[in-house]
């Protein structure tokens, strides 16, 4: 799955997701990616967020919406992502998932849930001053 946030010079925010879902899923199953607030969410006043992982679990918590709301309340993007992950951890400590967050002034961050085999999360950034995209890594919490 890819979840993407784009912000232009004026602070306009858009988000998108695309996926082929879980392998061997029961026909008809849909994950979190196409669900607004779950797979991704945007509000140009605040910023955007996108999630990836186990959609069957993550969609129950609307983590992208939750992260944007945390940023609206003053959290920086990293803290907002961490808090959104924390909401899921409380009920599903072993869930597989990560969230990326960016605010409309260009700050960004990410967070993921630490489980065996998933201790860090890689995401990609292209911002002003770079000539090519860079990979960034966040340590899971």
């Amino acid at each position, binding site marked *: 799955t890819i979840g993407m946030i784009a912000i232009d010079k004026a602070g306009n925010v858009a988000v*998108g997701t695309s996926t082929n879902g879980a392998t061997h899923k029961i*026909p008809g199953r849909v994950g979190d990616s*196409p669900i607004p607030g779950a797979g991704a969410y945007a509000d140009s006043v605040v910023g955007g967020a996108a999630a990836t992982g186990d959609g069957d679990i993550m969609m129950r918590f609307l983590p992208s919406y939750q992260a944007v709301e945390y940023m609206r309340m003053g959290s920086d993007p990293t803290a907002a992502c961490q808090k959104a992950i924390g909401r899921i951890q409380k009920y*599903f400590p072993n869930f597989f998932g990560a969230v990326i967050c960016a605010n409309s002034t260009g700050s960004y961050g990410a967070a993921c849930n630490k489980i065996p085999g998933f201790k860090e999360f890689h995401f990609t*950034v292209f911002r002003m001053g770079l000539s090519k995209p860079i990979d960034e890594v966040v340590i899971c919490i």
Partner: protein
Amino acid sequence: KAELPLVINTWPFRNATEAAWRVLEAGGSVLDAVEKGCAQCEIDQCDGSVGYGGSPDENGETTLDAMIMNGNTMEIGAVAQLRRIKNAIGVARAVMEHTKHTFLVGESASLFAESMGFMREDLTTNHSRSIHSKWLDQSCQPNYWKNVVPDASKSCGPYHPFKGVKNEKQSPLQQKINVHNHD
């Protein structure tokens, strides 16, 4: 880090990031950037978890889900269980641009896509056929059923509801989802 414009995406899918960035650099909109970036991943079949030929379901079929959102207007277009159309994010954009709805699913979403000019194509590849065949050979393991007969941890379906005492010790769903198999 407060420098705009900015493109950020999950996972190390650099071609997608760059495709989106080039749109912004050329003066395109953030919606165009996101659509282009996600579409690049669909073409590249990023990680096997995006686009055609990946993540076959129990019937061996690949279906696609996508969503796009405008943070200025709160307009959204989304599709799920899209069959036979490779450009899922493009169809999601079309839902936003050409309907008053938000979310179309299944066969009807595919018919909508065709009516909007998207090409009908087979999403199955030799790779996805191989994944599905291997799964059938492994007695349909792993799968996402619980409390059914026959025992889904050992056998393929068809399954029916188990009417006895529910087995609370069944392995958690999240163990089947990992860095190689995710939404």
